């Protein structure tokens, strides 16, 4: 009887220590550990999931992933009341505790093997889109490979529905319209040049011909 009581008392004391985390114990989680919080939507391999509108992020350059995470975290992207999917990503970006963790998860995402997503958008004319793409080339590269210098991400290999949705968001001022979003501000007029949804589908169909 007495032994049982002292054992449970000892357990209670030990358990209460678990609640204290001394300053020195704080550590930055590794990218692969942090990515566990992303895998449920973007997939273990980073290939995305259409049913929850999560894009293919595998192998995106670390600087781009980091920049987007910083934007989501600071309310520069995914803040607009009509950005349903962006508002879904926003709290996820805030799971990293500090800049070091943001960098770590971004490095991990860029280390994932890039994969080409299967097409699903119907009715895009890749030949017509090739003409449109001439404008995009200056920043996104001739094969949609992206360019560090212009801060324009790779488009090749991305889901076509995601590209169309982002073009609509840029054009509608749902993405890239925040006063502090300087790179988004460069992209907005480009999306506005695409007259309608058909033009968007065409250019996206052309992007679909690039290999990743």
């Amino acid at each position, binding site marked *: 009887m007495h032994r049982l009581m002292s054992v449970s008392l000892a357990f209670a004391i030990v358990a209460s220590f678990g609640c204290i985390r001394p300053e020195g114990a704080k550590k930055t989680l590794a990218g692969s550990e942090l990515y566990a919080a992303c895998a449920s939507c973007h997939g273990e391999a980073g290939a995305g999931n259409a049913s929850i509108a999560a894009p293919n992020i595998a192998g995106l350059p670390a600087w781009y992933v980091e920049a987007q995470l910083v934007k989501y975290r600071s309310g520069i992207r995914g803040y607009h009341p009509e950005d349903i999917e962006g508002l879904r990503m*926003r709290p996820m970006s805030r799971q990293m505790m500090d800049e070091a963790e943001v960098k770590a998860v971004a490095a991990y995402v860029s280390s994932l093997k890039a994969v080409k997503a299967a097409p699903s958008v119907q009715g895009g004319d890749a030949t017509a889109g090739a003409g449109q793409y001439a404008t995009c080339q200056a920043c996104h590269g001739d094969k949609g490979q992206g360019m560090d210098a212009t801060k324009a991400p790779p488009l090749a290999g991305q889901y076509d529905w995601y590209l169309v949705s982002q073009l609509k968001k840029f054009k509608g001022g749902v993405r890239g319209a925040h006063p502090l979003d300087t790179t988004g501000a460069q992209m907005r007029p480009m999306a506005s040049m695409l007259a309608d949804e058909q033009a968007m589908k065409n250019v996206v169909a052309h992007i679909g011909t690039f290999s990743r």
Partner: protein
Amino acid sequence: MIDQYVESISTFSGDIDNVIWVVFLIVGFWFVLAELVFFGLIFKFLAKPGVKAKYVSGERPEEKRWVTLPHYATLAFDVAIIVLAIKVWHDVKIDLPKADSTVRVISQQWAWTFVHPGPDNQLDTPDDITTVDELHVEKDKTYHFELTSRDVLHSFSVPVFRLKQDAIPGRIIKGWFKATQTGQYDIQCTEICGIGHGIMPARIIIESPAQHRTWNQSNAPKVADAAPTTPPTQLGGMP
């Protein structure tokens, strides 16, 4: 007492605290009494040398009383709690007092969008102010809210108001509140709604009439660039 832990600043938060208190006292009284009887009997009938253990079947009326009397008391107290709770429930949930203003609360995975009526105090007009994760209201004014969800079940909870209301996709659920104090407080989701459930907090900012007027004026969109009032459609995902 409860408000030492979570402030109590709506016209009905005190009533809800009272119900919690009454339930606590009734349950607490019976809890203490039951434990006293329980341990009292244990110690009274501890094993004694020379006394043989005896099986009591509990069928004699004076034995059964130990069960039936507390049973009737429980029923009586239950009825008392229900009567009291129904009155508060009616005031908080059923009987909406006339509104001074109406706000729309739109929940989604994982954010709160609030549509404020703007300077003209009318929803669905070009001067509506739409915000994400930030609700601005005026102290001492009766607000109706129209709660909806864009995807799954959520629950709109303002702990300092003791207000909690489930949001159900496809339904517009109406409720009310009236803040009695200015300040900034938490709004939280209290219905498991997916992996971001724990990280969809928002703030309610309760302002004085002057502060609220200024906020209204400086945030109302100019009529020219007003956002369309049609509900947003999903842009991403499979077409």
